[in-house]
């Protein structure tokens, strides 16, 4: 397939090559610290000194701005911990194993177990549903659709990725809930013997609704990231597969999917990070329950982020601390997921650059 976008990748690679060259020129040309001997041309020392100060000032300013990112990440951890610790000390139960959430009582009892379970379960449902579909659409856009269709469609997907989560939440609650309830009742009738679909009802505002809404939300993100990855497959590898007599699907399996695998994994991880941290869509679609339950279709379910949004209004000081503690757990989980995803991408980038 002659996918032209892949050419632009080479173009960027070329540009990357340009930067070090310029940087070298900059270092030799301008950094006054390199001039240990007096210049032969008799260049005055005075202008050099002024230049020196502005240059270092600007350099320092931009370095500080860059370091700000690290400062913020550390600050997030520090401040969350500082507010969480008093609440955790006041807790009368084990934070990690307790299911219920009564931090506002005089004898506060709260734990993350049910919340963390709901967070992970809803995200897993979202990924199981969204990833195959997202990869299909990405392949459709990169290798099946004619360019005239793929470009506007890709544009629409990018736009959907920008739609605020509160809109998806509202839609899930007002529109999507009904078909999901019907589907749940049907599942319960015919597959009620499976614990996942058992229960007495009521159905509808369930972890399944939340998971499906999350799936619809992460779909555009995973699609647009993996589409980019698929488009980067070197055209010459695709041609090599075709020239060996591969069908289009075989070409995709031989050249596109193996090449895109790390990128797709990273895209899925980023989607997972998004799903784990999603707040409002779940706050609107789940009906709050504090228990660990594998039943997907009965009303209930909860997540760390949704619980923060729901419980924040009535929280007293310990309650706030408890919510911040749960937010800290969420922070750590998403940090791990994101760092893993980025590490994969970085390793792949190095691999690609060294191969080029």
């Amino acid at each position, binding site marked *: 397939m002659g996918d032209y976008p892949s050419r632009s990748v080479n173009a960027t690679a070329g540009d990357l090559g340009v930067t070090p060259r310029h940087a070298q020129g900059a270092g030799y040309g301008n950094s006054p610290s390199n001039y240990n001997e007096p210049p032969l041309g008799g260049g005055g020392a005075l202008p050099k000194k002024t230049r020196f100060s502005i240059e270092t000032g600007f350099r320092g300013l931009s370095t500080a701005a860059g370091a700000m990112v690290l400062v913020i990440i550390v600050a997030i951890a520090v401040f969350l911990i500082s507010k969480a610790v008093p609440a955790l000390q006041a807790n009368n139960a084990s934070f990690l194993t307790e299911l219920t959430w009564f931090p506002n009582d005089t004898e506060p009892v709260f734990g993350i177990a049910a919340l963390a379970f709901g967070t992970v379960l809803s995200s897993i449902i979202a990924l199981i549903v969204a990833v195959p579909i997202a990869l299909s659409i990405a392949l459709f856009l990169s290798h099946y659709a004619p360019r005239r269709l793929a470009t506007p469609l890709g544009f629409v997907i990018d736009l959907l990725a*920008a739609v605020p989560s*509160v809109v998806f939440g509202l839609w899930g609650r007002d529109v999507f809930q009904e078909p999901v309830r019907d589907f749940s009742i049907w599942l319960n009738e015919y597959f009620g013997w499976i614990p996942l679909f058992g229960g007495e009802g009521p159905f509808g505002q369930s972890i399944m609704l939340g998971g499906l809404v999350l799936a619809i939300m992460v779909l555009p993100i995973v699609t647009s990231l993996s589409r980019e990855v698929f488009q980067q497959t070197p055209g010459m590898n695709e041609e090599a597969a075709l020239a060996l007599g591969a069908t289009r699907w075989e070409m995709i399996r031989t050249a596109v999917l193996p090449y895109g695998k790390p990128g797709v994994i990273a895209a899925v991880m980023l989607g997972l990070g998004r799903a784990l941290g999603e707040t409002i869509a779940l706050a609107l679609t789940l009906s709050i329950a504090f228990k660990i339950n594998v039943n997907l279709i009965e009303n209930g379910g909860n997540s760390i982020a949704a619980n923060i949004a729901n419980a924040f209004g009535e929280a007293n000081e310990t309650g706030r601390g408890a919510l911040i503690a749960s937010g800290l757990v969420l922070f750590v989980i998403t940090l791990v997921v994101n760092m893993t995803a980025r590490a994969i991408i970085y390793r792949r980038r190095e691999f690609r650059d060294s191969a080029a």
Partner: protein
Amino acid sequence: MSILERQVPGVVMTPDNIRSRKLPVVTNVLVAVAAFAVAAVVVLGTGIGNWVLAVVVGAVLYLVGLYFAAGRVEGRRAAKNRTMQALIYSACVLAILPLASVVWTLVSKGIERLDANFFSTSMNNIGARDPLGGAYHAIIGTLEQVGIATLMAVPLGVLGAIYLVEYGRGKFAGTVRFFVDVMTGIPSIVAGLFILSFWVLIVSPWFNDGQPRFSGFAASLALAVLMLPTIVRSTEEMLRLVPGPLREGSYALGVPQWKTILKVVLPTALPGIVTGVMLAVARAAGETAPVLLVAGGAAAINFDPFGGNQQSLSLFVYQQAGDASRYAPARAWTAALTLVALVLILTIAAKLLARRNKLSR
């Protein structure tokens, strides 16, 4: 005798026979009709489901039938190719349905309260039985919060990107770049909690007689935390696209590096940077959770971003969605439509700008 011919006779075509039979379109249609007919009869006849299930079962039967029909006529490889293509196409259709439903609901429910009153009043003194009430205060809040957040995040983000591209070398720059990427994935609620514990609970009492105080500015801080990594990343990419010879030309004239960056590099990359900023702004405008945690929401108009509770559009949607009044859902949908319009206009403008920029390069 070649290995291929020894191993898979029949599949391999001899040189004298490069012809293959193709599955006739008629057969394809017949398989489809048969699949859906069987599905309809079985599902509706036995009453185990409605037409939706019939369609789903029909689609599955069609895919299976297609695989076997094509397998008989064209061979296994071609059949697999055909089936995978059908699967990919049906996944697209499947995904379009809910997304189209979102758009349709948004428009059809959103225009109900799309009137002048909605954009000129707040929710002050609007009780559960009042059909009116609007989002004026929320729009003010969104504009102020996002505006202040942009003012804070853009200089910081652009400077950070300049560091990464122009000055950053070695391990520290690598670490910064890595954590910028990681930071893009921080959930918005965590950013909200961070500003809550840092600004609202610790700093704001200094200015408010020891009492913690919500404010629009706190929301701006949280949004700035969310915007920063996006802006750094997009600006960094744009700066890297500035051709090296352009900089070298400037250095060769004896212009110092900081001046080159400000006078040559930044202006060249400006359209791209603006695009990135607009995308970040669009993203921030849609955030609900941090505003809920640190601005608190309000029913009345509050122009002062430092003076107490403030509303925002996304938070307005969320609160109206949870409101018991029977007029609340209409307000929620209209506010959602307004919010989406705002976000999409920003996004589309940014993408068009990016496209034009690419063309001129």
